[in-house]
């Protein structure tokens, strides 16, 4: 498994020289995100995010499960985000092969799962017996830096897009309806955490860049990820080692992050609305067709 190639001294000095002159190698501003594209699939809960050349897809799915014994009134929400051989050849499949992957998975979990983005109580069906296990699978297709940022956007988009099957409880029996029998239900999402990663370069004066490309990631001296929502609530700040940053600069970064998070959240809602309109149009077209038969699928009954 080849390791990522080390960056040459020429690359390092060129990048630093450019930064000193206020230039970034792809001519972006220091505080600019790369172009963000968001696409949804025909299935509910599928989001395809492109942040520059970085490409991440997230898929949210749900199945019935038993609640955890110490949380009988809550459902379960998990995120699986392994790097995989497609995203980067320096990775082995099946297990975490380096520290970067572990950190990525933990930060995603901290940012989204442990910040209570999804209302777990609403996922409970019969306390102590049946609940929904909502699962988000993240697949990294191309790694060009900013994996954490792209991943957070993808998961947020997929969660908003997802519709779970409707259920009803009668006595002790739970009936799960298929997607065509009853209108599927959206998840109850409390807030939308978005991650913003700052790359710290130490020169004569320290400078921070937003949304680093892979090259900038390899050459940076330190990094910091701030996760917050559009209401200005900071969910988590991760700065593990690397070049130190002044406390005043930290507050400045948080303010910059808020602007970005608001932009991204507005963009997310706009794309969701566009997808909604497209779906409604498609549904109307299908229902008006001559050969449309309302499907009568069997229901799923559990005790």
């Amino acid at each position, binding site marked *: 498994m080849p390791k990522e190639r080390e960056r040459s001294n020429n690359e390092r000095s060129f990048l630093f020289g450019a930064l000193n002159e206020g230039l970034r190698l792809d001519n972006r501003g220091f505080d600019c995100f790369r172009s963000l594209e968001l696409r949804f699939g*025909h299935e509910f809960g*599928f989001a395809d995010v492109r942040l520059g050349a970085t490409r991440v897809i997230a898929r949210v799915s749900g199945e019935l499960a038993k609640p955890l014994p110490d949380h009988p009134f809550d459902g379960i929400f998990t995120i699986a985000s392994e790097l995989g051989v*497609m995203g980067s050849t320096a990775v082995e499949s099946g297990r975490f092969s380096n520290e970067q992957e572990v950190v990525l998975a933990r930060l995603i979990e901290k940012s989204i799962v442990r910040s209570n983005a999804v209302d777990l109580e609403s996922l409970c069906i019969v306390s102590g017996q049946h609940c929904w296990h909502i699962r988000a699978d993240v*697949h990294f297709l191309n790694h060009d830096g900013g994996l954490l940022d792209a991943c957070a956007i993808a998961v947020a988009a997929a969660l908003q897009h997802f519709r779970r099957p409707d259920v009803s409880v009668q006595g002790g029996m739970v009936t799960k309806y298929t997607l065509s029998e009853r209108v599927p239900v959206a998840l109850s999402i409390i807030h939308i955490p978005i991650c913003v990663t700052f790359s710290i370069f130490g020169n004569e004066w320290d400078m921070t860049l937003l949304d680093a490309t892979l090259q900038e990631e390899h050459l940076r001296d330190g990094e910091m990820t701030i996760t917050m929502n559009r209401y200005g609530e900071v969910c988590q700040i991760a700065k593990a080692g690397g070049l130190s940053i002044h406390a005043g600069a930290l507050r400045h970064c948080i303010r910059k992050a808020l602007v970005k998070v608001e932009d991204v959240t507005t963009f997310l809602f706009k794309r969701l609305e566009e997808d909604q309109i497209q779906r409604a149009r498609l549904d109307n077209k299908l229902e008006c067709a001559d050969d449309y038969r309302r499907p009568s699928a069997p229901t799923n009954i559990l005790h």
Partner: protein
Amino acid sequence: MAIAASLTVLPRADGSATFKSGLTTVIASVNGPMEVKSRDELPDKTFIEVNVRPAIGVGGTRERALESLIVSALSPLILRTHHPRTLLQIAVQLVEAEDHSDTTAILPVCLNAAMLALIDAGTPLASVLIATTVFLNVDKEGNSSSKHVVAYAKGGRCVFAESTGSFDEAEFARAVEEGRRECALDAREDVDMDGKETVGMVVRRVIEKKVEADMRWKEL
């Protein structure tokens, strides 16, 4: 059944392709020949590793089965002796599917995507493989008595067949013949497709476009 394919979708992989058939979409990437782990090293051949990742979940027995089927279909067509003691890593990611548990529908899409990715990567190949699924005796509700995943190489030779359901020898021969028609590379052969494009024609068109783009410099 709308079929679409595109090459070079992932910038960092040596070769990559997307293959879409109806509602099923698969992305494949190929990396190699590259450094191999010493335990996998073969003294005279390339070691081929296939990784299939499902859309939902981390993958279990079904994905391992898909991996072994893909290896058995593609290994004979790759000129492995050209790069001994190296690794060829093929990664297949299922993006969307009509029915995630239906291997018969997903397998040909994976095979086609992997083959296109191999071509995109410039891997030495003996032949191009085109795969499709043939449904026999389809009734009004869309159920069929047997499903056959068949793949064809140069000259319309059937090199891979994986069948489920109940059928007899004559039906199997019929399925193979039907598949050959569906995978034909062009309409000039002794096939009769009522105007619509076969899987083979789509693949051929996509590769021709790429070669044309790559050979632009020759016109200068």
